[in-house]
């Protein structure tokens, strides 16, 4: 069982380019999340989805979009990347999205926007 798979592992991107970070889970979890991790700031929620077909905004959603066409996949898109989006991005999931649930994280995508 892989859990959560993120791709790519790392990417260098020119500013202004479009980029989609992929996330797939095989645990049949209803809720999925995207976090960014920056030194000194911890993990901040970008977007989340409680179930297929629904999405919501987190703490830092500007410049990012997500979709949830099915239970397993939750891609994160940067429509026009900017240097401030240089970060490590983690996809996570939980069983149902109810408060106080355990989060399962992928191994992350290191993104550098130049």
């Amino acid at each position: 069982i892989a859990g959560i798979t993120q791709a790519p592992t790392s990417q260098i991107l020119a500013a202004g380019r479009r980029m989609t970070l992929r996330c797939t889970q095989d645990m049949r979890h209803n809720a999925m999340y995207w976090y960014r991790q920056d030194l000194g700031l911890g993990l901040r929620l970008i977007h989340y989805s409680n179930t297929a077909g629904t999405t919501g905004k987190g703490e830092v959603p500007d410049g990012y979009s997500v979709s949830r066409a099915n239970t397993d996949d939750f891609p994160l898109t940067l429509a026009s990347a900017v240097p401030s989006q240089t970060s490590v991005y983690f996809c996570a999931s939980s069983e149902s999205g109810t408060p106080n649930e355990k989060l399962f994280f992928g191994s992350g995508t290191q993104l550098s926007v130049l």
Partner: protein
Amino acid sequence: QQQVKQSPQSLIVQKGGISIINCAYENTAFDYFPWYQQFPGKGPALLIAIRPDVSEKKEGRFTISFNKSAKQFSLHIMDSQPGDSATYFCAASLSGNFNKFYFGSGTKLNVKP
């Protein structure tokens, strides 16, 4: 403005020593306080969690101490081992605030052999 403040940013402990990481929060409505452990190149993984109706929770060498009146909670790692070297994040969430976890800024722990 961070909802959960964590300190120290980094910590060096000798093998066998006690590692202590502290977190403070403002929102008294928070009712779940997990700690996540992250090894280099990996995503965070749940280590231990506590609810505010108890003052302490212990799992093996890991203990959470919770002080509701001071709005603080801490992670204690007893008999610290080199394998405990990782980054630790505290977090808080509240019932009714679907999906929202507020993470601290992280503490990088280095346990020297």
